[in-house]
């Protein structure tokens, strides 16, 4: 090729959009983002509902309740409701996170009014038919078996069980376990919905091309009519405590497994951290966010042990984790774990100017594209609202990121990484158990799959 490598023209300044904000009479905080060219309108309703509100013996009930919201209402049977959604091309569903029930709606703009009315019905007057409750419970029990069979899911479940104090809700699966899910009745679901789901404190985000639409009026006519007079406020979020013996190794034995799945982690911050969330986003990228990051530069590109291993800081409402996860072939399990722990431990020694620059550039310059669709904007806005962060956080965080130095990253990583790790390995333990004990990274326990 005769053409020389081209120069780069500087990127234009960018900011996450600022919404129009309205407080409805029933307590809903409404955020609207008019984004020309986004013909599918995305709606999120975030209802703060801490997972810790679940009764211990009925864990999973929030998930079951959320999944049942669109299975019939006071006015429509489950099949009628499903048909109303599909004839208008409405995508609608709800799920549970650590801190909220989140309903998601996607619809072509001209059907937004109809869709919002169905969304109101689903939240305000779900019927929870007995047969649907039984089906949701059976489906969740089958899903638990599916998760047990999936190595990444199995590793994740063992990680939280080992890392968190067993008294913490965070130490157990969000969707509950077989025994707790099996105990859930229709009356329980009705009671949980009545006690926790209401408009006050909830945030509604609407994003899309609003040409020809009066979105605040449409929301006022529909979700604005949702009323729960005796709604109790959601409990404030609290930090989940780490187990006193979290720094140890758990082997989940799956004889015959051709790969070993790792989940390696320790504490991390939430987005409110004084050191700035931006530093942890850059750390995630530099340590394990790409094929050229520290982890895959060795494990994938040098050794060929893996298709890819990722490290990421995962914020919770209060506190968080720093988790490295991925799989390697069984024969190299011990060497791969040794290399991984070495890379993770050595993050405390610091980062180069080039690493900081690469991470800052990637995250900040990808932002316009990452937030280009109505769906992405709505998702980010709902996250900010639930986290209690200002609506310009995405932008100010990037401004703070641009100022980061190697010293900042050094301080940020040393504020959380101590050299202690919760290590979970899912695979054929007979092939590597002795080798992992020899690494001397804490007590090694073997549990069945």
């Amino acid at each position, binding site marked *: 090729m005769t053409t020389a490598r*081209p120069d780069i023209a500087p990127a*234009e300044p960018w900011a996450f959009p600022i919404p129009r904000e309205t407080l409805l009479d029933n307590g809903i905080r409404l955020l609207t983002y008019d984004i020309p060219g986004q013909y599918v309108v995305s709606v999120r309703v975030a209802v703060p509902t801490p997972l810790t509100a679940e009764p211990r013996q009925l864990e999973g009930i929030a998930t079951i309740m959320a999944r049942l919201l669109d299975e019939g209402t006071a006015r429509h049977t489950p099949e009628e409701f499903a048909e109303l959604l599909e004839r208008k091309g409405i995508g609608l569903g709800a799920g549970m996170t650590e801190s909220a029930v989140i309903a998601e709606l996607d619809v072509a703009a001209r059907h937004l009014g109809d869709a919002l009315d169905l969304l109101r019905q689903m939240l305000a007057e779900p019927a929870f038919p007995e047969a649907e409750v039984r089906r949701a419970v059976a489906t969740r029990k089958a899903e638990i*078996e599916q998760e047990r069979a999936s190595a990444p899911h199995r590793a994740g479940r063992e990680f939280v069980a080992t890392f968190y104090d067993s008294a913490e809700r965070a130490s157990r699966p969000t969707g509950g376990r077989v025994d707790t899910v099996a105990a859930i009745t229709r009356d329980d679901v009705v009671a949980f919905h009545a006690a926790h789901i209401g408009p006050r404190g909830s945030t509604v985000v609407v994003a899309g091309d609003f040409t020809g639409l009066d979105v605040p009026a449409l929301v006022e006519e529909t979700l604005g009519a949702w009323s729960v007079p005796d709604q109790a406020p959601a409990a404030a979020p609290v930090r989940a405590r780490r187990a006193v013996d979290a720094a140890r190794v758990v082997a989940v034995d799956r004889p015959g497994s051709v790969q070993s799945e790792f989940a390696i982690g320790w504490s991390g911050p939430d987005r409110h951290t004084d050191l700035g969330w931006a530093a942890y986003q850059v750390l995630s990228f530099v340590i394990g966010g790409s*094929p*050229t990051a520290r982890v895959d530069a060795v494990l994938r590109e040098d050794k*060929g042990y893996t*298709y890819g291993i990722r490290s990421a800081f995962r914020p919770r409402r209060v506190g968080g984790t720093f988790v490295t996860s991925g799989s390697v072939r069984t024969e190299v399990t011990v060497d791969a774990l040794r290399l991984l722990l070495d890379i993770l431990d050595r993050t405390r020694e610091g980062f180069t100017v080039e690493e900081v620059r690469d991470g800052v550039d990637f995250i900040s310059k990808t932002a316009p594209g990452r937030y280009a669709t109505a769906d992405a904007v709505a998702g980010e806005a709902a996250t900010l609202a639930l986290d209690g962060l200002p609506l310009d956080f995405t932008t100010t965080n990037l401004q703070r990121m641009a100022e980061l130095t190697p010293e900042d990253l050094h301080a940020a990583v040393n504020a959380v990484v101590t050299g202690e790790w919760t290590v979970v390995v899912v695979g054929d333990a007979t092939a590597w158990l002795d080798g992992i004990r020899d690494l001397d990274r804490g007590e090694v326990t073997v549990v069945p799959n």
Partner: protein
Amino acid sequence: MPLDYPIHDRRLPNGLRVIVSPDHSVPNVTVNLWVGVGSRHEEPGRTGFAHLFEHLMFQGSRNVASGEHFAALMAQGGRLNATTWFDRTNYFETVPKGAMDLALWLEADRHGHLLDAVNQENLDNQRDVVKEEKRQRYDNAPYGTALIEVYAAVFPDGHPYHHPTIGSMADLDAASVDDVHAFFQRYYGPNNSVLTLCGDVSPEDGFAAVERYFGDLAASAETPRGPGPQLPPLASPVRVDVTGEVPNDRLHLAFRLPVDPTPDFVAAGFALDILGGLSTSRLTRRLVREEQVAHHVDAHAMGFIDGSSLGLITLDVADGQDADVIEARAMEELERFAESGPTAVEMEAVMAQAERAWLSALAGQEERADLISHATLLHDDPGFINTYLDRLAAVTPEQVTEVARAWLRPANRATVAFLRAQEVAA
């Protein structure tokens, strides 16, 4: 609704088809390249090669060091990857518009001059990586090999779709540096590729930039063979049982379908949605909601160009239920549908859901660019993204019924059943 995404179409003298679709809403440009080679072109004993080759495209070229393609673009805010499938290989990145020239320069270097950098060490490393990809996604995942079994059951031995894109471990082991050279020389070249620019760029600037970096590449690719004749539906059921440690029994019911793009393929998509793809679909209504003997039903059509497409219905059998009984009930629904065809409400629901899905797919530049490249390379139809919904709207209930009668009868199915081991022993 009428769609009018702009489409500007030009072919360079060396054969490179270039599409520019300006969209100034975000200061980014997506560069999306489709090469007319996929696993359907692979020779016996070299399955998995097209995909392994795709990995080598990231390991350096004449002026680019190993790994530099990823690093250089990510440092400029590029999001990038590549994938391989039966009919094609695609390479794509979305970059701030000021880095569009860098992206084109990097792509031209590897699409024109890869072989300067290919060596045994790179090949061995990426062979290991691809084998880990196979273990992770197929061998170490429950039901991971289901589609591999489906392809082998539906398509005859020697057919281009009989073997999976991931290939076999033995064939991956057999791949040599000489194979890499032969494959590149045969299939890679501007005359077997489509390049789409979608984003904040004018047609004039876009065409000029592509010309600048790709203009002097030679039209080096051989003329690829055309597609084979349409396969008829299976004449009698095919059955494959796989027993193992799976959480629940799962049935895959697979069908040959008319090739894409044909009106019959579009109609087959309607039929599969109505049978199992909607939450109000017939199989979901009966087996999941009413009888509660299945946990989940899915159905969709996969469009291919070389003699057949594929229809797939998946049924997750509820605990304690008999997979054979559930399959028989599903067959009753297929027969009933072939006899009576769709209702007006079913047609309305398919159309409404397809419209939202299509508008969502087009909402971001990345996927829009990929859909433009797809339609241009495989169907010579760059404006397809604007006309697809009109094609859907033109489908009649009679067409859906005819397609169901011809292609989606119980006799036309291949059943791949993943069964829990203990049930077989009982």
